[in-house]
């Protein structure tokens, strides 16, 4: 980048700003500065920018046509959206909040199922033997929840 342009130059700032105002109003078609001045090349850039992009506003007919096309597209996209698994079977759309609630529920289930007090026999032998099995069940449940959530979440 041209480092000279990074230098403060309030006079040039004002001159260029005034020039732009005139150009946008259509009152200036050529550079106002001496061609040897640095400001002149900036003015040329402003003129290029202004002449290359149409300044006339959108007419009402174009706005209407664009609005109709937008509505058609919305309708098309709406029809092409497949209802999710949850919506189809339970009539409920899974929002991120609901998804989080399901995840929290899954964690609670895991904790409950894997806790030693879950086995009610009181036998240490039974408890010791069943804990790994419970853990497998809990991990499996959590896995199922996760897979279900992953495949049914909204894209």
């Amino acid at each position: 980048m041209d480092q000279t342009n990074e230098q403060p130059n309030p006079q040039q700032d004002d001159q260029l700003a005034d020039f732009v105002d005139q150009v946008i109003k259509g009152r200036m078609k050529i550079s106002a500065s001496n061609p040897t001045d640095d400001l002149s090349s900036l003015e040329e850039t402003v003129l290029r920018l202004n002449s290359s992009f149409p300044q006339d506003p959108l007419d009402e007919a174009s706005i209407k046509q664009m609005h109709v096309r937008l509505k058609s597209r919305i309708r098309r996209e709406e029809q092409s959206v497949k209802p999710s698994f949850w919506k189809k079977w339970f009539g409920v759309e899974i929002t991120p909040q609901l998804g989080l609630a399901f995840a929290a529920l899954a964690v609670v289930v895991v904790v409950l199922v894997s806790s030693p007090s879950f086995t009610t026999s009181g036998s240490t032998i039974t408890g010791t033997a069943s804990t790994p099995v419970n853990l497998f069940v809990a991990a499996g449940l959590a896995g199922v929840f996760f897979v279900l959530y992953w495949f049914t979440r909204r894209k």
Partner: protein
Amino acid sequence: MLYSIKATDPFSTLSTTQYMENITNPILQDSTDELLIQHFKDGRKEAFDLLYYRHLPKVYKRVRYVVPENDVEDVTQEIFIAALNSIPSFRGDAKFSTWLRTLTNHKVAEFYRKRTRKQEPPISPLSDASMHTIGSTSKTLEERVYLQRALQSLPENYKEIILLRFAEDMQFNEIAEMTNQNLEATKSLFRRAIAALRTHLEK
């Protein structure tokens, strides 16, 4: 989530005058953007039509400065679809126009990300220019593509001030007020932005 639109679109059968009368519903016409958003949230879906009518010209013009001619309407549609879907969560912390401007910038950035992912050339002057010659000469369109490419290469603050002045026709004092800068700093930033643009165009 997309909001339901009636299967038969009433607007498609109206003349332009009827359409304008419909869209400039006197009850809604004088409402501020924020009030229209509230109407929309309350279930008056036609409020969005008025927001669209009000903001389309500026959004379209801004997109036109940074996106190839072929894709301008498509990107503009995506901006308004995103707005339609996000309005329910619009809290009014910023003005709607500011919010929509941010959304526009995101959608334009997304357009270029997708384009890069598809490994299409960033902007190819001849192909884009040669496809649209109605109303503009191909030379003007080619020049536009060069300018778009140069604009896209600028730092965000430089690009933004150029777009605010040219595409949105905001005065320097309005830009200064909006960006919480003083007028001198705003004009200085504009000059540096134009200088950077010139440098890119000379490359």
